[in-house]
């Protein structure tokens, strides 16, 4: 059964073309993927991300419980800060990638918000609950009652600021504050999935429509545009960010994905996957995620084989690929043997049976101009 977000009527009124994504009816595009992509790079875009999961973890041992369940070190977060994390199998495979936000303590103790991919929310909740056994920490899934609206782009702060009651200058990259959003109580996080400055606004489902409308009105003059999942994908790919299901899955460990820094082997406590991940850290991964710029004619897509250029031997697979709207060339990510993962290496992508030349390049493909960096971003990890 397909579920629709609380903003589905807005998307239809805006002329969105919808797709089924992880069991949700979501906007793929409104005016067009390229147009929406450019709006986010040059001005700002607004996204309905209400399909994503919001899992709250509370209790005196909430930090320790998350520290055991996840590969990162949420216990080390101070209130108001966030960290990118992963839920791994005992073998070190990625069940899901997540953002963990620490909020000010409640009467119940420590309080964390864990934001999960839509398709994985149920399994994440169940896995976390199992791993919390023995810890004084409770998990509650408030996904259905929570709307998530993102505003991303160089003009995001100027569009969001008039609608919130907190000074956004004080909200650093990977931080979160409680505040009023369009008059409703909510959470304002400086996080995103586009490679631009921007905010993710969590509000109750009741307020979703009015907050969405207020942001669109507020941003109209600045050229704020609604953006669908199509451009969300091209934006994150240019920014070199992994998508669970493409770059990350249970057969892939964080080190292979170039995300070994997320795994805090040095944290003082045990965690699920530690032994397996310590072994990978010791030996180095056998295969690595690479960026590819296709130099021949053709667009590399998910599933295309990657070959050594001369002998045509298959050495890997493309996990995501598209025509980069910003760079104007086809770009892709994929896994290859570590020996052939150095930037500058010439490989070939097999596109409809033809070996098309492609060069290994450093990720990300796109980095926003420094002048647009939010205050404090340089100090963020």
């Amino acid at each position: 059964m397909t579920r629709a977000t609380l903003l589905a009527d807005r998307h239809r009124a805006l002329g969105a073309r919808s797709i089924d994504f992880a069991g949700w009816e979501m906007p793929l595009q409104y005016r067009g993927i390229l147009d929406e992509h450019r709006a986010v790079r040059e001005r700002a875009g607004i996204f309905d991300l209400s399909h994503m999961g919001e899992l709250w973890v509370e209790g005196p041992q909430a930090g320790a419980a998350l520290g055991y369940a996840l590969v990162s070190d949420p216990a080390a977060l101070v209130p108001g800060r966030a960290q990118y994390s992963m839920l791994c199998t005992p073998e070190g495979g990625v069940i899901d990638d997540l953002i963990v936000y620490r909020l000010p303590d409640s009467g119940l103790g420590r309080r964390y918000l864990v934001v999960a991919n839509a398709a994985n929310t149920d399994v994440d909740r169940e896995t976390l609950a199992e791993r919390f056994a023995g810890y004084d920490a409770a998990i509650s899934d408030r996904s259905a009652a929570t709307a998530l609206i993102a505003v991303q782009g160089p003009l995001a702060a100027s569009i969001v600021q008039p609608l919130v009651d907190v000074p956004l200058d004080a909200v650093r990259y990977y931080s979160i504050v409680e505040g009023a959003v369009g008059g409703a109580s909510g959470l304002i996080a400086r996080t995103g999935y586009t490679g631009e400055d921007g905010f993710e606004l969590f509000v109750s489902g009741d307020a979703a429509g009015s907050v969405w409308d207020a942001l669109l009105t507020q941003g109209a003059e600045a050229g704020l545009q609604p953006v669908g999942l199509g451009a969300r994908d091209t934006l994150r790919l240019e920014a070199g960010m992994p998508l669970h299901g493409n770059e990350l899955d249970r057969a892939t460990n964080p080190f292979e994905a170039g995300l070994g820094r997320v795994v805090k082997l040095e944290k003082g406590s045990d965690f699920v996957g530690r032994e397996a991940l310590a072994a990978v850290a010791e030996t180095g991964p056998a295969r690595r995620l690479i960026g590819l710029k296709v130099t021949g004619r053709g667009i590399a897509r998910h599933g295309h084989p990657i070959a050594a250029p001369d002998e045509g031997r298959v050495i890997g697979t493309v996990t995501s690929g598209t025509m980069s709207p910003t760079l104007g060339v086809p770009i892709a990510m994929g896994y290859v043997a570590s020996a052939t993962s150095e930037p500058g290496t010439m490989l070939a992508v097999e596109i409809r049976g033809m070996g098309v030349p492609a060069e290994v390049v450093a990720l990300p493909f796109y980095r926003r101009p420094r002048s647009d960096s939010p205050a404090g971003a340089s100090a963020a990890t």
Partner: protein
Amino acid sequence: MAVDVPDDLRYTDDHEWLRDEGDEATVGITAYAADQLGDIVFVELPAVGRVLKARESFGVIESVKAVSDLYSPVGGEVTAVNGELAGRPELVNVEPYGAGWMVKLRIGRREELDELRDAESYRSLLAG
């Protein structure tokens, strides 16, 4: 939404159009197909001189999200391809019946034209 379906063209169920110019025909994809695909970013066309059968795949068109095959409405020899599309694939979105044309064919058997839909029939296909 009203989709442009010119009266003087023939159409396939796969949303290609054909302009009958006597011995030759020009082929492209319809405004409906271009709109459904979204922003077109890549077009792969056959070599001039290739002989195509009716309904044979002669190339590929890619939007940001999707990859689709292109099918020849009738059999014939490719006499020209639109080289402009290599650098400006967006012409297919902007002018699907004009500058966004794809190939010209020397028509093999004119009887095959009778198999194609006229504008009225194609409009009813779209109205589904």
